[in-house]
């Protein structure tokens, strides 16, 4: 069954969208999400409700909004009511969604504000250092910025836990938790670094590797939900690379996917054989690797206990290298838009994406 698409113009360029997790995550899907805007004199965080997934013409209802200083560069939910967002002005805020009981009486309340976490040592007047990305693991939050700094926060403390000045001599653009004490960062030059946050004394990454020989910015990083050593990295040139962190000198699989920058890569949280990417070229793609993992498993069946359990097996289909490339199934979920799609989020069979044409698109019944 093809997905239902419902587009809504919201009068703000949307930079991030995130589904609000539901308390009973295993029973029902979410129908509420947060958006963050950018490139506007007055940016805002907004909470939206999508009335019903059956009614195709249903309009979005804006439940609440909160003005935001600077572009919203990232939003991450910590639990069902708290979320963290970062700003192009270098600040990070912990916000809370409060519902006074009725459906329409939601509000967004600022809980903690970490101001100027990212700054230039010698900045010109009115110059701000954007916080470009953040990642969260339970209550731990890692933020990175154009100043090359990495800051470790925790959601219940006003003071940063740890500040790593000069984690990178370049500007950092994406970050992702690998384990509770490990993060991976990507910079403007496409250099990826794995950091151990547990080691307090020295500020050296555990390993460093390059996306490619050219200076291609790493735009987003995503870790496979079950195969923890598999990491996918989106590039400024539209490439998608799969890395095996156990032998991370070179990417295992390199795909030239989109014609323009990959803006977000998201695995389906519970069905990791489904991957979603969106791009500055206005495309929204659905990748299905079910066939790949299936292809690897029967192999194991045939030569029982022999050589069958190859490396393909444990990569969720992504570590097959060149051989498996053409077995990837890729679908375009919506006809290419004319403007960049900046962000997407997926929850069960519903997907939401935000675009520079100031619209939010909701897709229900995506075929998974």
């Amino acid at each position, binding site marked *: 069954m093809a997905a239902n698409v419902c587009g809504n*113009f*919201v*009068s703000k*360029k949307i930079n991030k969208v995130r589904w609000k997790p539901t308390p009973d995550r295993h029973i029902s899907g979410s129908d509420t999400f947060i958006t963050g805007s*950018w*490139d*506007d*004199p007055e940016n805002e965080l907004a909470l939206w409700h999508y009335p019903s997934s059956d009614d195709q013409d249903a309009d979005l209802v804006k439940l609440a909004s909160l003005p935001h200083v600077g*572009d919203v*560069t990232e939003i991450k939910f910590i639990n069902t009511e708290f979320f963290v967002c970062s700003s*192009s002005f270098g600040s990070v805020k912990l916000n809370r969604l409060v519902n006074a009981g009725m459906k329409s009486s939601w509000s967004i309340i600022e809980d903690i504000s970490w101001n100027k976490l990212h700054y*230039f*040592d*010698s*900045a*010109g007047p009115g110059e*701000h250092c*954007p916080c*470009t990305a953040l990642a969260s693991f339970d209550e731990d939050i890692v933020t990175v910025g*154009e*100043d*090359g700094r990495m800051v470790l926060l925790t959601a219940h403390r006003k003071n940063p836990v740890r500040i790593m*000045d*000069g984690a*990178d*001599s*370049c*500007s950092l*653009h994406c970050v992702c938790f690998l384990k509770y004490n490990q993060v991976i960062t990507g*910079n*403007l*030059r496409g*250099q990826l*670094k794995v950091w151990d946050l547990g080691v307090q004394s020295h500020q050296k*990454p555990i390993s*460093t590797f*390059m996306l490619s*020989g*050219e*200076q291609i*910015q790493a735009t987003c990083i995503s870790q496979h939900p079950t195969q923890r050593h598999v990491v996918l990295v989106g590039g*400024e040139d539209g490439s998608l690379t799969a890395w095996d962190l156990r032998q991370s000198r070179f990417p295992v699989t390199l795909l030239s996917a989109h014609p*323009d*920058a990959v803006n977000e890569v998201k695995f389906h949280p519970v069905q990791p054989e489904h991957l979603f990417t969106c791009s*500055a070229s206005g495309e929204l793609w659905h990748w299905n690797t079910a066939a790949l993992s299936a292809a690897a498993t029967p192999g194991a069946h045939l030569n029982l206990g022999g050589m069958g359990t190859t490396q393909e097996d444990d990569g969720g289909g992504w570590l097959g290298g060149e051989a498996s490339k053409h077995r990837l199934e890729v679908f375009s979920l919506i006809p290419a*838009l*004319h*403007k*960049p799609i900046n962000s997407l989020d997926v929850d069960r069979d519903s997907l939401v994406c935000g675009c*520079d*044409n*100031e*619209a939010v698109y909701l897709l229900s019944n995506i075929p998974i």
Partner: protein
Amino acid sequence: MNGTTSHYAPKIFGIPDSVCEQVGIIGQWMAGDKIGIHANSHTTSKSSDKPSEYVNHPAFIHHLKLDVVLFDPIVRKLVNESNGTFLAVQKVRKSKVNQNDIQSEYLKLSRQYRSIVRACLENLQEVASNFPLKKEQYLKYVAIFYNIEYIWHLCEILFIDVVPGKWNAVLPQMLDWIRFHFPKCEQQTNRVVASIEGGLSSTLGGSGGGEAHPEYWHALTGLVLQGRVGEARGLLRLHSSARQEAFRAIDEALRTMPVYTVYGGFSVTEFDMRWRCWQVSCSNKIDAGVFSSWPELDFIARILAGQEKVLDEAAKECESWEQMLAAWLLYTDPTVKSFHLGSHASRCIAQFRSQGGKFSVPKAVDSLILSLMESNLHQVGVSYLDHCPTEGEACLNLLLPRVPLTSEKRALKVIQIAKQRDLRHIVLSTCKVMGKRALARKQYGLALAWALRSQDAGFATHLADRFLEGYSASGEFASDSHSYLDLLDNLGSCMLISGRLTFLGKYCEFHRLYRAGDFREAAALLVSLLSSHLAPKYFWMTLLMDAVPLLESNDVVLTSDDTYALMHCLEELITDRNSEMNRAIGHYPIPYSEDYDDDLVGDDMEDEMDDLTIDTNTSNKVTMDRAFKRKEGLIRLALGRNLARAIVHEMSNTE
């Protein structure tokens, strides 16, 4: 401000600032569409030279920004949505589908566009009625966008919805257009009908026919003028004398009126004939005096007969000349072709004017589009300019560099837009701006990344020099907070854009090899760096000093040839230095020249750091001289010893 302000009526704004009021102001364009304004008294050569009398007054800078209708939240939806339509049209235009399909595709998009505008109108009206404060402004917007839709609808009829093969017949659609946009007679009819229904229920079986309502005849004439035959007949039947001969006659005339449709099955000539017959029969009835006792019916009958004088008179029933045009065409030239519309239209305009009507043509969308570019909606503007044949690219060239680069994300977007359109100079200048900014903030790593991005060899060389200088001073590739090794160790093939950068990359590699204990390879690399002259002269001394531990290592890692090469370099350095000294002595007192300093940067290392505090030129020079001599001795000794060992080693090996 809003889009309809004409060129001839300047808007005047008062700056709420007492100093500005008294002295006068001066303004300057800032980024985009903003103006910065501050108080400024005009001084000339004749003004007396004394401090301003406003010295202690507070000084303000006021930012003025154009408020364009297109930035209103509701209108923004329209802008973005219709931009999608615009691009879809451009895509269809470029596709190689056959003409018919393209036409229907255009029509679909045109209708889509109109429905977008109508949705926007609806939203605007909603806000206007719900928020009294915004009412006036929003009603103004409604007027603007109503006109846009109105005009576009006509364009659609005239240029897009043309049925190929048929005879360019426009009347049916024109009537639709008029009916849609001028619903006055319909509303009047509704009121008449409502009054009768009301009357029936209150004064049961009363004599009140439709004509009792003051708008009855206006409504009827209006319906006839718009060719709404069915509704007109219905209204006629409501008249209390509807059974009289005159009414029956006019009803009959309306019933038999040939209706022209594109797919009606008649040829033009056939239709024309029927039409003429019908009009003659109408005229006959008028001449026979059928309507003589009912002047209103007589008037309508004459309209049906297409009498020009009467139609001109009917203009006062019309709200606009367009409405009159439709009536005129309907009763004088129903098979009119689109290319004859012009002459009919000008006749109607003239007639309508003479009747005291007025009309205006709203225009000037261009300036709005430009202002679009200037602000945060630049992506929408870009996609519009993309499709402008000649001026588009020129505009982009001017406007893209003016997008404020407040974050790297924004810069990268500008670069992306420029790259897609092959505007290489904009890519380069944007990278340069970002690089220079990083340099100003002392983010050398970032600056180098931008230099590499734009393949800017000069900038890369400059930065490599900075790194080397930093190394000479501190002995490591790092600033207070950053280590640059993550960058320098991973330059890859990028280092090739500049010789200096290549050297820097290789030098880092040398250190890496050395640290890894790979002395033989480290030594080979060092020698090749020196003998290939890739290294800048000011760095030679440092390199030679780096060679000393290799020369003194237990194993012989430098061959005799290598040693000769190094000796040669040392000699060259000394010769250069001597000639420099000679030149300097010639110009007593000794000048402390820039290149002279450059040659010796390598000197102020480790053990000499304390000497650097002596700051007079001469003593400085003396200490440097001493340091140089000491290093020279050290290197010579190491070279000599290694040469001896190497020769012995090589000789014993050959045997």
